[in-house]
């Protein structure tokens, strides 16, 4: 399954962490909740390696570690990848004497996390004033539905604003700042903001990726402009990921920075607070699934459908794609429909579903907005209706291939700077040069009938030298055949 993560777009928390200073990472590892969250971001084999070393007291070298790995190419490359990631995140440290050890603070805190020791309170402090049990209390414990509702409205408010469905008023200033900072929207001359290509790509991602992308931009903003401590902010994010949905937590024990964060996160729908000044907060589903890595728990889809009353129904996808490029989306959410409109021709709308069609024009429109074919495919994949998931191949291969072909149509010309060699005297001369150039692997194009060869920029010098050598050879052999080689740069 193609899980597309747009590399240049720092959506991935992992890449953000990798770019952090080693000392910052060390500080992060002082919280067990953070250790657990970061641990879960690692590739599978890396997690196993960490676990194998976690309770070991032996000193290992890289060669010792390799003993655990099967001696085939795939295994070894996975192993190298795992080691590389571990070292980049400063979880595993290679010392001068070639021994490998876990980062000592990571090791200690992660052990604590598994054994339940320590007094770090990094998994959230409960708000347990006795009054919440009494029925007479004015605040009733918000049930999970309220929390979901809150998360959904707040988050969709942001997305709606981006899409420009004008039924919402613009979200808070801090949201606007993040959106412009992330270049998801830009200032349109005169009137307000306009969505960018990045913004379109953003819309196609699953909610979890969106939230992280958003938080990371917020993090940048926070450290630059609000002078917040990155470690504290990150720790707070990771702690949120380990909290229980539907529980209330106390603001006590939070640092000033983190209390400040609460307000902003309430605006994004990650946190619910009954009152601004409340001494407790409730994480919503957006927050508790932050580190679980699975997608779209708060699906923006048709939760108002009366028949599916349980939560699981809303988690599932809603799109059915047929081999004839017809698309049926069981949703009544304006937002989902606008997103679909990015790359489909909408046809009919019913009370609980819309029908649409994927056409060359509609997909090209999306591609021109900078959305890639793989993004469309991954969006369709991740939002596929459960009925589709029962089939061996999720999406019809005709549709997948065609979307990719439409993308390739736009990339038919590849421009390579090169030198054109022409006017060889004889075919034999042409052949010798071509053969040599082929062995060097620098031929871009050649034509036997026209006796012309295109050589890459990199190979030009070597081919030129070869021809000169040949000419010198011929002359010294007394022959008068001179092949003229014209090096003319061409497209």
């Amino acid at each position: 399954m193609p899980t597309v993560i747009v590399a240049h777009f720092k959506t991935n928390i992992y890449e953000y962490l990798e770019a952090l200073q080693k000392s910052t990472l060390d500080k992060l590892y002082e919280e067990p909740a953070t250790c657990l969250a970061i641990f879960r971001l690692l590739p599978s084999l890396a997690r196993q390696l960490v676990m194998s070393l976690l309770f070991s007291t032996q000193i290992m070298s890289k060669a010792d570690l390799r003993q655990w790995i099967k001696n085939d190419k795939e295994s070894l490359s996975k192993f190298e990848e795992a080691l590389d990631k571990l070292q980049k995140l400063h979880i595993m440290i290679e010392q001068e004497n070639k021994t490998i050890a876990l980062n000592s603070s990571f090791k200690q805190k992660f052990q604590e996390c598994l054994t339940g020791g320590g007094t770090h309170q990094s998994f959230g402090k409960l708000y347990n004033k006795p009054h919440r049990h009494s029925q007479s209390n004015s605040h009733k414990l918000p049930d999970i539905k309220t929390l979901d509702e809150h998360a959904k409205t707040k988050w969709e408010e942001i997305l709606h604003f981006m899409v420009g469905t004008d039924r919402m008023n613009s979200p808070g200033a801090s949201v606007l700042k993040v959106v412009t900072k992330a270049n998801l929207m830009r200032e349109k001359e005169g009137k307000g903001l306009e969505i960018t290509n990045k913004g379109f790509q953003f819309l196609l991602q699953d909610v979890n990726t969106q939230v992280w992308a958003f938080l990371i931009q917020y993090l940048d903003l926070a450290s630059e402009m609000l002078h917040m401590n990155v470690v504290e902010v990150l720790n707070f994010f990771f702690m949120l990921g380990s909290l229980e949905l539907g529980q209330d937590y106390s603001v006590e024990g939070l640092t000033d920075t983190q209390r400040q964060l609460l307000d902003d996160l309430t605006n994004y729908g990650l946190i619910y607070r009954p009152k601004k000044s409340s001494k407790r907060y409730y994480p919503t589903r957006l927050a508790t699934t932050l580190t679980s890595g699975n997608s779209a728990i708060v699906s923006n889809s048709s939760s108002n459908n009366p028949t599916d009353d349980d939560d699981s129904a809303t988690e599932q996808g809603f799109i059915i794609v047929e081999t004839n490029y017809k698309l049926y989306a069981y949703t009544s959410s304006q937002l989902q429909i606008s997103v679909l409109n990015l790359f489909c021709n909408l046809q009919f709308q019913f009370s609980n579903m819309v029908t649409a069609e994927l056409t060359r024009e509609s997909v090209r429109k999306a591609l021109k907005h900078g959305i890639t074919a793989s993004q469309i495919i991954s969006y369709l994949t991740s939002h596929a209706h459960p009925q589709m998931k029962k089939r061996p191949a999720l999406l019809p291969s005709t549709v997948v291939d065609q979307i990719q072909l439409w993308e390739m149509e736009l990339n038919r010309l590849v421009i390579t700077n090169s030198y054109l060699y022409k006017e060889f005297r004889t075919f034999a001369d042409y052949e010798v040069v071509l053969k040599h150039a082929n062995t060097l692997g620098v031929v871009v194009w050649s034509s036997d009938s026209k006796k012309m060869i295109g050589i890459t920029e990199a190979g030009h010098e070597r081919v030129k030298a070869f021809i000169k050598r040949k000419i010198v050879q011929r002359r010294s052999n007394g022959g008068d055949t001179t092949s003229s080689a014209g090096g003319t740069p061409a497209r």
Partner: protein
Amino acid sequence: MSVLKDTATVNEEDANLLVLIIDTNPIVWRKSNFSLKEALRHILVFINAHLALKHDNDVAIIASHVGVSKFLYPIPMTHENSDKTIFPNMYQKFRVIDEKVIANMSALFEDVDTPNNYPDKASSMMAGALSMALCYINRITKADEIGHVKSRILIISVSPDSPYQYISIMNCIFSAQKLCIPIDVCKVYGSDTPVFLQQASHITGGKYLKLEMPQGLLQFLMIAFLPDRYNKKYLCLPGEERVDFGAACFCHKKIIDVGYVCSVCLSIFCRPLDECSTCRTRLTLTSVRQNGRVI
């Protein structure tokens, strides 16, 4: 066939269900210099480690006790546990499971009547535990429509084989093989080789490992038994290759090399009989054929 889904191929994204069967035979544990309590501490950390690997990893724990086998986790709640205090120093999921396992385990040990009434005190109810594990896995696999959950079974064993359970354990092993569920076996204590369990891991493609030093249980669990089915593709894990396919005779439950087999019901006997004790067929002993196979 009940399971048509592809449970054989594994992906990195799969959720893993670990069904842990703990042999809690108190008589055998008492003989060991490594107490069950100590072992449980290691096992709980191991369970936490398994859950830490992935957020959607899950676990089920079954105790194979003397005279009874019982689920320790999960147990459907009859009355909602009102004590919902959250301990801020531990990940909530870890704590819930740890507590339930400890509570149910001590409940199991308080009920001493069952073991006392049971004649065979040397072994535990492994066949029952395995059957329950398979039923549980069957239910989870059926509920998961897209074949996302990959299951395996790990047995922490101390007791010797009970010959009475031979057929039922073999039935479990073949079912596990059919469903592509590997059975890993970690023998913590005991000088004997559990032939049945060794076969279980051999036939289902699991690992069998006998600990020389039970004190190192956690480290062994972490290295040899934590890797999920995806990671096992890439790892060389410790394990013993040699498998003894010895069979137990039905009459004395002895492990034998050469036996007499009833041609009707395939019961194995260690000496020639006139009548099969299982199916009451009158039997004649074939003279040892001189031209074994006639062409």
